[in-house]
């Protein structure tokens, strides 16, 4: 028997049964049906599962749900309602960053957290914030450019 777990996700309260050690990733995907957050490695090596907890980018595949009760969780489905998330999404489309797109939920979450914390990141800021996110299609050149464009507010 588990006590119901209560999380605040994208501003909504969600209540569900899950073991306390269950990673947030599987709660999102398999319990709540929010499949925008992706499974890539399960060991925080690829960043596909990145979400925001209190505005910071974290890997949901190794984050037990018990650790995020009473925290504000934001996922890819809702990041467009944040100023940095909306800018990142727009730049991603303006520059056609995306290929298969599977890693891009995580890339966008990582980039949005970066811009929220550092409004004008330089190349080393981008490297530090984004090196944990693997893109097998190799879209890195455009990711870098899109982050700069989102930061500058310029149009493509």
């Amino acid at each position, binding site marked *: 028997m588990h006590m119901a777990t209560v999380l605040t996700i994208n501003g909504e309260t969600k209540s569900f049964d899950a073991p306390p050690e269950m990673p947030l990733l599987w709660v999102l995907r398999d319990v709540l049906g929010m499949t925008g957050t992706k499974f890539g490695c399960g060991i925080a090596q690829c960043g596909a599962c990145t979400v925001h907890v209190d505005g910071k980018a974290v890997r949901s595949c190794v984050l037990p749900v018990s650790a995020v009760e009473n925290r504000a969780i934001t996922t890819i489905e809702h990041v467009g309602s944040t100023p940095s998330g909306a800018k990142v999404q727009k730049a991603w489309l303006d520059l056609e960053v995306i290929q298969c797109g599977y890693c891009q939920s995580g890339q966008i979450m990582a980039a949005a957290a970066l811009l929220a914390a550092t409004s004008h990141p330089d190349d080393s800021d981008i490297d530090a914030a984004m*090196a944990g996110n693997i893109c097998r299609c190799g879209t890195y050149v455009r990711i870098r450019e899109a982050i700069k464009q989102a930061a500058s507010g310029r149009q493509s």
Partner: protein
Amino acid sequence: MITDNSVSRRSLLTGGLATGFLLAFHLPLRAAVNEPVQPVDTTDGKFAPNAFIRIDETGRTILIMPQVEMGQGTYTSISAVLAEELDADWSKVEVQHAPPNDKLYGNPAFGLQATGNSNSIRAWWTPLRKAGATARAMLVQAAASQWGVEPASCSAAKGEVAHAASGRKLGYGAVALAAQSQTPPKDVAVKDPKDFVIIGQPLKRLDTPDKVNGKAVYGIDAILPGMKFATVAACPVFGGKVGKVDDSAAVKLPGVRKVVVLDDMVAVIGDHMWAAKKGLEALQIEWNEGPNAKITTKDIWEDLRKASEKDGAVAKSDGDIVKALASGDKFEAAYELPFLAHASMEPINATVHVKPDSCEIWTGTQIMTRVQSEAAKAAGLPIDKVIVNNHLLGGGFGRKLEPDMVIAAVKIAKQVDYPVKVVWTREEDIQHDVYRPVYRDQITASLVDGKVAAWKYKVAGSSVMARWFPPAFQKGVDIDAVDAAIDTPYDFANFHVEYVRAEPLSVPTGFWRGVGPNNNVFAVECAMDELARKAGKDPIEFRRSMLTKNPRMLAVLNHVAEKSGWGQPLPPRVGRGVCVQPSFASFIATVVEAEIDDIGEIRLRRIISVVDTGIAVNPDTVKAQIEGGLVFGLTAALYGEITIEKGRVQQSNFHDYRMMRINETPKIEVIVVKSGEAPGGIGEAGVNAGPPALRNAIYAATGIALRRLPIDRKLLAAGKKA
């Protein structure tokens, strides 16, 4: 409903991006339950002139995609080709995944509904242009007949037929039903490329708006009512079987529903992936490892080296190779490439619901009809009782040209009466792949007057074709494994190519992005650099002197030489390397600039590729594919190697099977040259350019001629001798 399965992007171009990505791309999403819907191709009440075009009375234009979207942009490019000749309103085009049907949707290059070998645009170019033009002609005929005028006096543009003389216009929707009863013209004319209005534009992709907000649905995202989740452990030794399974602890865990024991793997079904994973960890499994439990990579290489010394089957022979090799300055080298895993970001998966009289599958596959027929066998049902719902693929790279994950999921789903989503962990995905084969490529050549007078090239390695597509393995030659060995850009008067089929002990092999030319382009371009040095010539000058019959190749080489600053001075231990390749009917020249530090670590400084791919249907996609392909190939050159010990793959996840990351990726410039030639392939091509260009940059910087991948840093430390 068909609408649920189509990509609506009405507002994308007209309404701007802000509304575009809110409204666009209604790929299978139903409120909170993203249950994908089988693309039921209803033609009732529609103009349906062929398998690809559906126009209803409102003018809604749905294009059915015979090839799958795995990031390469083909949904947009295929739509562009159809819409161009159809004179459709591009802003209103919607796309839909095709159902499995080789007759309707088989790639003309294979006769099979497969996406691979950079063949989507190449093979479909003419058939889809004709399909679009035929549909357009029928719509024009219908309008002309309604107006009582000659079809030749009418024109069409942006989804409307116009009669200039009377100023009348009719939208495609208004004539759709009448068009259905028109006789299709024989030998319809297609447009002169100078009249293209969609092809050649840097089009916004149709699939990307829903990839920025979590709405895009990949196979792994399928959700069905009552569905459970499973994950698997396959015998770690290739060919091994399940022995004994003690599931007493696992079945007691909360959320674990069932343990399924198959011949060679065990699955745990649970309420979610976490329960399934915990259940799997709690199993005590004894494996019958079988005869392969002692195999090591070393054994495999010993076998391959031995096999490669045999004479091969002759794939091509021009001139007199024996005589020509007997004179001149002789060169001999062997190049060796490792096993590689695909590591698509979306781990392999399939969701299956087996009922007594049917089997329904939700997955993302490159090989629709084979999935359907193999699932039918596994389910024990006729093919027409198997429904396959295809999805966007989170990377394919050749892994999803195999049906193994679907077969396993069907066998698991047969044990229960509810739908099961089976997801491989990253570890299982990497350890139970079909691997890019190990290859040993030997090149023997002779130089006379500073040019290659004789070129003998022997490829040795696994034949993927012999297993996957037997018609392409004839008289001992795998046409893929020697693809870019035969298709040389250079003027080699005496030219001889052989192939030795050598299957690695126990390790399954498959297609890997870049396919056969992966080994060929690497060996050829490494050897060309070594020969240039032997001849005392600059690598680009040396190549140029032997490209006299290949103006497209020569033009891109000259272009990249100019743009890369070739020949300009560089700091110590920095080098530039070049690669030219005519593969997949695209002509690409690439220069990589790299720095090698004192301990042999490599820093990529700059990459530039010049590409002549013929008519670039979507030039921005061509650039993107080369950018990404370069990273894919360079990842392999820098890190990629799967090794075997005790019959098991030793790598398991991204910590020990490394990928290039953003901090390692340099500036990449891709120049797409204008061309009126038929389109070439582009998805595979960039992959092949990176490894030899980087290797040649290292050769230039250090004098060390590497002949194996991945790059061994130990050989490159300062002070190491060339």
